[in-house]
């Protein structure tokens, strides 16, 4: 009986990604994703189904709430009501996922590999990966930060040196010069 409980505890704790597991965890899961994409391509599976499967794998390590907040910037964030924050986070997450989903059909059998990890600061780790196309290599960097209890989460992804959060940040700051926050929320809705 006791063993059962102990093993249950261990299973529940698997969700907490530790520093020394980042590389193997990502390696394993990127492989899973490549398999999903490969099978999806062979069997003509819809992007919706594929993306559902992929998000299920990666959702536990992405901190979408933090990503939403960072893309808006602390200055703006602090002026928002809780309701606005929640709504923004929801719409931003939806948008991020829609953007990812729309690109899935560009997958054409490329190899995706984990190239290594880089500890940039004591609480930041960059996981370097590469999509190997026929002619070129594309770098993708997953940026992790250390949260409470030594758990690590992704807060930004950069593709070919372009940080996704930074791109949103410059757009949101530009938009908020022209419109109110609630108008921005509406705009987010319109385009997804």
């Amino acid at each position: 009986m006791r063993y059962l409980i102990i093993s249950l505890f261990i299973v529940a704790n698997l969700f907490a990604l530790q520093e020394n597991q980042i590389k193997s965890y990502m390696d394993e899961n990127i492989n899973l994703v490549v398999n999903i994409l490969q099978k999806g391509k062979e069997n003509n599976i819809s992007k919706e189904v594929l993306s559902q499967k992929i998000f299920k794998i990666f959702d536990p390590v992405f901190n979408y709430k933090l990503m939403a907040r960072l893309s808006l910037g602390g200055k703006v964030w602090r002026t928002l009501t809780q309701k606005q924050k929640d709504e923004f986070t929801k719409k931003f997450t939806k948008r991020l996922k829609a953007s990812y989903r729309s690109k899935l059909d560009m997958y054409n059998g490329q190899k995706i590999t984990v190239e290594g990890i880089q500890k940039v600061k004591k609480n930041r780790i960059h996981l370097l990966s590469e999509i190997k196309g026929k002619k070129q290599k594309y770098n993708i960097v997953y940026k992790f930060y250390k949260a409470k209890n030594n758990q690590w989460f992704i807060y930004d992804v950069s593709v070919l040196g372009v940080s996704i959060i930074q791109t949103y940040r410059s757009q949101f700051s530009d938009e908020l010069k022209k419109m109110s926050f609630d108008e921005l929320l509406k705009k987010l809705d319109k385009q997804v």
Partner: protein
Amino acid sequence: MRIFILIFFTIANLYATLPNTQIVKNQQIQTLDDFEGEFEISDKNHAKEIDPLYGYNKIMTNINDKFYIHILNPVAKTYKAVLPKPIRTGIDNFLDNLMFPMRLLNNLLQFKFKNSYLETQRFLLNSTIGIAGFIDVANDNFHIKQHSEDFGQTLGYYGVGSGFYVVLPLLGPSNLRDSVGIVADSIMNPMTYMENRGYNLFNNSTEALGVSVEKTINYNSLHVGEYEKLKKDAIDLYPFLKNIYEQRRKKEISE
């Protein structure tokens, strides 16, 4: 005991089915100032760069966008339908191979000797076994990737700042430094036409223009739909393209 296990199962299940929301809610976002610093540095750079051509740039961004969507893209699609892919890839390889002097010079100017060597190897292999550059044997058979460098990157390497943002007609996002780079590179490029230059491939500027139009259409026929995909991510096209261009160039120069 049994009840305890039952409760545990329920909790564990909740945890498993709602991993994201659950974890995110549980974790405290504490080191936020830390993050702000990380992105604010880039923001400051962003804000520092004044945009004196904002009015013009914005209009040119729209013109380029319309040109791309309504003219270049349909033409490239038709072209794609007419010419089989191996031929289009061949033409792309051929024209790309001719840009070798520009890549070599800029690699050398940045003291990238290994890459200069690899570029030279690529040029020799592709020009001979690759039948005048039509087949990229260097990549396909010898796994030697291209190491492209342009004069804008060379200037950046020597510490020249990007200057203000400029959207060029047809060519798209650029900045003061990279626009100078484009002019310098076109002098190196045998496919442009310049009087009194010893290495013109063409007899006059009309021919040279024709080839550069062909090059653009051919290139885009191999990348149909990519711009539209990227554009879909934009909330506002102008800051979106501007920011991507700036980040991308910064990365290319640092490499």
